[in-house]
């Protein structure tokens, strides 16, 4: 079972490798990947350096080119694939059928993984993507453990699941909430709730309001911790109640599911967070390295160590973690 860690920069990539990642995933500095944030990601030189560093350590580099190509700039996506292959990427993480088809035709020997943005949530969809020579599918975070198990037992495709990080509660690649509010979505612009639309207002009584393109996402009392206004994690009113109508600001944490995921033969555990700091990546990687080593050496006697939970809680949104959709009751 592979530990696949995020890197938005060279320092983060080095931190991941030094702390035990088996593979690292990165994106390019443009709209071709779903974490298109200012100051993040690698250019061609950076990508080449990343591949060299990762390979020196006997590890793998995955490159995410996982947004959907625009009609008049398809060239950018093609160039991104060319660039990644030329730099020496081991794996391309793709979502758009057009980009998948290009990679399959042009670089049939390069390993391709189906991005979570392609939203393959069932065995039939996985079957569909086999025509593009996909070697592994990243499952969306909407599935329960039972559903993951059922897919794992019906397909011969390698599966990758999200193990830790920000919790996307909608089927990825099919969520247009962000463009509804701002005009930019993960599919079209590579970002959800983009920072340039965020505004903070402080009232005289100390109440803090977070807005996204002028829509009020949340209101925080002076003693409350205020989180980034990701639009699905705001407090809204339904009927008489004001609450987190869609989801609380919390992080996904599947540590306690590790033995089950291992038994089902899940090929890889993905840590979310290319937008995070090198220090964050280092700590997360260290905990998950220990946890995976532990489950692989004694799958029947695996226990989550308190210290792991402690570290992960400290790195989580709102210091809270959840099993998310893996746990049926969450739904």
């Amino acid at each position: 079972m592979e530990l696949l860690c995020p890197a938005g920069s060279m320092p983060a990539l080095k931190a991941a490798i030094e702390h035990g990642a088996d593979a690292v995933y990165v994106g390019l500095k443009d709209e071709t990947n779903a974490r298109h944030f200012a100051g993040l990601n690698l250019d061609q030189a950076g990508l080449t350096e990343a591949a060299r560093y990762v390979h020196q350590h006997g590890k793998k580099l995955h490159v995410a080119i996982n947004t959907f190509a625009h009609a008049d700039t398809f060239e950018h996506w093609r160039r991104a694939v060319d660039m990644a292959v030329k730099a020496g990427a081991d794996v391309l993480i793709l979502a758009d059928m057009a980009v998948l088809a290009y990679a399959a035709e042009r670089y049939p020997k390069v390993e391709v993984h189906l991005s979570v943005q392609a939203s393959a949530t069932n065995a039939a969809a996985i079957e569909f993507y086999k025509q593009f020579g996909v070697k592994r599918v990243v499952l969306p975070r909407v599935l329960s453990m039972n559903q993951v198990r059922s897919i794992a037992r019906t397909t011969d495709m390698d599966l990758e699941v999200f193990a830790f990080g920000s919790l996307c509660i909608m089927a990825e690649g099919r969520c247009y909430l962000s463009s509804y509010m701002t005009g930019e979505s993960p599919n079209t612009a590579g970002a959800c709730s983009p920072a340039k639309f965020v505004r903070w207002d402080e009232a005289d009584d100390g109440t803090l309001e977070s807005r996204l393109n002028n829509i009020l996402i949340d209101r925080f009392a002076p003693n409350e911790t205020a989180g980034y206004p990701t639009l699905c994690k705001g407090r809204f009113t339904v009927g008489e109640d004001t609450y987190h109508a869609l989801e609380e600001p919390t992080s996904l944490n599947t540590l306690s599911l590790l033995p089950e995921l291992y038994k089902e033969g899940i090929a890889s555990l993905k840590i979310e967070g290319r937008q995070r700091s090198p220090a964050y990546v280092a700590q997360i990687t260290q905990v998950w390295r220990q946890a995976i080593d532990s489950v692989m050496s004694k799958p029947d006697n695996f226990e989550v160590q308190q210290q792991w939970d402690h570290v992960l809680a400290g790195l989580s949104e709102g210091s809270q973690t959840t099993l998310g959709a893996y746990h049926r009751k969450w739904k």
Partner: protein
Amino acid sequence: MKFSLGAIQYFWPKQVVENFYQQAADSSVDIVYLGETVCSKRRELKFDDYMRIAHMLREAGKQVCLSTMTLLEAPSELRELRKYCDNGDFIVEANDVGAIPYLQEHQVPFVAGAAINCYNQHTLRKLMSMGMSRWVMPVELSREWLAKLLAQPMVKDVRDCFEVEVFALGHMPLAWSGRCFTARSENRAKDQCELCCIKYPEGREVTSQDGTQVFVLNGIQTQSGTRYNLVNQLPNMQGLVDVVRLSPQLTGTFDWLEKFRANSQGEHPQQLATNDSNGYWLALAGLVQQLD
């Protein structure tokens, strides 16, 4: 320009659905999409009921298309999907790519629904090679995006081999989740939802703390808080869009159908309601309403 009725997105009692399609049969609509596309627990109507209604509508001169589930997770949902794809009589709207291999087996043409990610000419051609005969554009795309896509030589060459359909009236489906938000709004677990969404035939409104309607909850689906309304955009759809889709609403759907028809060439523009939007079509944020 043809007009269609999308599949009913909400959970309505069986009699309400039957009445709605009786009205559809008597209306001027050209194409009707039928089926449960949101939640497999909603079983007021079963597959056989939909087939019966499909035949009734066909006899009334409508083109009928069976519409399939969007978020498919459980093996039981795939078995139900198979039934739709194997119906042998009516064309099918695939709302998840999982439906496509089943439809390819029968070598029947299909409609690629708005939740299938087709954003460019290469994907469009790929889907056509699999049998797609009609493409419903993703709701977040604009007229400008559509025009650019259709202007690509590889699309122009085959433009007479497929139709373009655009979602043009109703609360837009914007997201699907493993979680049921209607059940959550009633403090129920999804497993004990007791199908409470039947109480909300127009979904549940979600407003920001300062009173702006932001979303509508419809089970596992999140819809736009605004009603998308492209009635006044019909003239600039000419030459680009073949089918205009109206999403069934509890009331007023057939009145709107006539208003849309009347304004196809811009002869009878309509006053938009405060809560109407047209932003996506105009390449703006989806919730924006731009006056003409």
